[in-house]
């Protein structure tokens, strides 16, 4: 069923590609890729698996100086940029129903290695680490920073968390539960997760190559993005205009495997179909698809199979060649990029792609391309078999 569009009035985004959305988009269109061996931690693997690490730390806020995680710092920085973009200040949100819906993976994991090593060795570990974890729920930190009183939700749907957070935030607006929702995702690079992905043999020891014939896997990244979702009434009250709209959202699980997508993309098809249905649009209206495109063999095969079947004429790309796979933040970062591309009327090249894969039967965009249509899809696949898709558009109808 078609649902009412939900306005996006502000966007914030930071990743290895830049500290603001504007910087990120400049990187994407210049083709810059900031990928290198990790600097904040080391490993004992025989080869070094590169990552997309941010060159700067997020600037701490007045309240957040006390003991919050890097993930929360990233989430706060994206929120501040997004609120500024939307023309909203903390005072303007007093007494307003403001919800926070954030996706993460690392940000909710109690897996601090330093603490655990000391615990195992009876070395009286520093409990400040645990306090930081307990104070560091990404959605709660944002709510606390701005003294917000609406619903608060940290989504841990693995790699689709950021996409789901935006889709669920849009539902909160439509239902009248909130006037504003701060929706997005945040995740930091973490040695434990880094080792986890290497153990699954889905990490590339060079820069990732989404959809390329010789792709070997993903590179992890870090970052955050936040979209400010706002009710029509509240926008009118503020005399503002929307930057873009969430037109549709779909979510469906594969029920197939914990770490591999369904070979036929069963859940992704359903999520995509639901997002289109909610938007009231069809495949011919879609300007492009910002794919999950992790560069793992299975993910890219499944995604292309589904896109060839459902959106055969829509150009597609992965932006993970610019940011790495930012896990719980990825869906939000890619939604931010999708809106920025629609605004600019251009999409960047799929970084890392060089040789078509005959098994896939389709290739991503290889250079900067102009787009005419005003609606695009941003989609995510995740461990646990979760799939999520957003239909984002420049116009209400």
């Amino acid at each position, binding site marked *: 069923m078609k*649902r009412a569009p939900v306005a996006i009035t502000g966007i914030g985004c930071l990743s290895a590609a830049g500290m603001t959305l504007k910087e990120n988009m400049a990187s994407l269109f210049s083709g810059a890729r900031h990928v290198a061996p990790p600097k904040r931690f080391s*490993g*004992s*693997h025989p080869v070094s698996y590169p990552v997309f690490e941010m060159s700067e730390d997020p600037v701490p806020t007045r309240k957040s100086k006390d003991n919050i995680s890097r993930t929360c710092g990233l989430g706060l920085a994206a929120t501040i940029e997004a609120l500024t973009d939307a023309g909203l200040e903390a005072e303007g949100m007093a007494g307003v129903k403001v919800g926070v819906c954030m996706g993460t*993976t690392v940000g*909710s*994991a*109690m*897996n601090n*290695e330093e603490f655990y090593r000391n*615990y*195992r060795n009876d070395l009286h570990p520093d*409990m400040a680490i645990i306090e930081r974890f*307990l104070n560091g*729920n990404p959605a*709660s930190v944002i*709510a606390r920073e701005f*003294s917000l*009183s*609406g*619903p*608060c*939700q*940290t*989504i*841990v*749907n*693995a790699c689709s968390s950021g996409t*789901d957070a935006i889709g*669920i935030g849009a*539902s*909160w607006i*439509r*239902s009248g539960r909130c006037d504003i929702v701060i929706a997005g995702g945040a995740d930091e690079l973490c040695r*434990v997760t880094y*080792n*986890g*992905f*290497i*153990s*699954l*043999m889905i990490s590339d020891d060079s820069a990732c190559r989404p959809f390329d014939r010789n792709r070997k896997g993903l590179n992890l990244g870090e970052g955050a993005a936040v979209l400010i979702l706002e009710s029509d009434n509240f926008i009118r009250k503020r005399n503002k205009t929307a930057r873009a709209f969430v037109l549709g959202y*779909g*979510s*469906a*699980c*594969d*029920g*197939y*495997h*914990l*770490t591999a997508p369904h070979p036929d993309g*069963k*859940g992704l098809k*359903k999520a995509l179909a*639901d997002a289109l249905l909610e938007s009231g649009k069809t495949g011919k209206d879609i300007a492009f698809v910002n794919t999950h495109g992790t560069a793992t063999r299975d993910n890219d095969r499944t995604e292309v199979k589904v896109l060839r079947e459902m959106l055969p004429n829509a150009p597609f790309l992965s932006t993970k060649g610019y940011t790495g796979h930012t896990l719980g933040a990825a869906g939000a970062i890619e939604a931010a990029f999708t809106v920025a591309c629609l605004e600019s009327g251009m999409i960047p090249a799929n970084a890392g792609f060089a040789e078509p894969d005959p098994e896939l039967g389709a290739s991503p965009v290889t250079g900067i391309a102009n787009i005419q249509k005003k609606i695009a899809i941003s989609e995510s696949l995740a*461990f*646990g*078999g*979760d799939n999520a898709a957003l239909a984002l558009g420049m116009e209400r109808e």
Partner: protein
Amino acid sequence: MGIYITGIGVVGGFGCGVTELLACLENGATPVKELPASRSHGSAYGPAFLADTSYLETFVPKKSLRRIDHFSQMAILGAYLALQDAGMPSLTGQRTGLVVCSGYGAANTTFSFLDSIIDNGDVCASPTLFSNSVHNAAAGHISILMELDGPCLTVSQFEMSVSSGLISACLWLEEGRVDQVLFGAVDEYCNVLGYCWRRFFGEGNNGIMTPLSPDRQSAIPGEGAAFFLLSRDKAGSSRYASVRDVRMGRLDDNGISCPEDAILILGADGHSRCDEPYINFISQGTEAACYSPLYGSLPIGQAFDMAIAALSIKKGRIFASPGAVARQDSINIIKEDHLIGSKSICCLKLGKEGEFGMATLSPK
């Protein structure tokens, strides 16, 4: 639009299934257990309310459970028990959503994964442990075993996880995204958690939880899962209760308004710092119960309170709070079973920083 609870599945220190929970409610006590040494590296903290998942083999062949950890097994068992309680409706072809809430996720597996790195080096990190350590592993296993293909959500909001996840579950039903939702919550005990308790709160107590005593730290760790089959279909409404309202917010804003003459179930669980706001907030003479001494202290305790509220509404009576719940002059603690007619029951969880989550169940 009404949202109805048509099935409940619970597993915890009190036992397995609504019948055993009901028995503990009527007895007013749950025995605590000594911790097994096998629960992650390190020594145990003291007594705890631990869950036994052996009944899961009734639903799932043992060989299919080999690689599924205790955390996910509790969730799977809770989910199957909820379906069994609802009469085992077929989920195939139905528009069924899945929402799982957890405060800490698969804690034991998370630390076991770290063990694999520390003991054997980075190159020997265990892929099986890694994939089972992600927060949505339990939801993934449930969706695979039950062949679900609807929307799926895992929420981690510490003590507010249940209210937060329930908001989204209800919205999915209200907006017609699904026809039913398997909604549940799960958390597990691990020795690292016990160690943290010892460092924060001192040695374990004598095995008696006395919530609502702000001068005494009496919390005992608990673990378990509580699942609900939620439906828009009124035909199943007679099974339990309807979810009338779910809210989250901050006490320092406009406070919380409960329905007139509603009964409160307080999520106080023996943490002295966290219990104090209940005493300060509850209006003079408010009728309230507290059942945490039956299931222990864990982030998703509110889900057990929801199960107890639904059972109370079905039975038409509120159960006495366990004897150890402290009496407070300002709160009319329910100490004896009595009939409640058509009253609503509000399950209230307060956070340590002034946040609250409240789920209100009613007979209609």
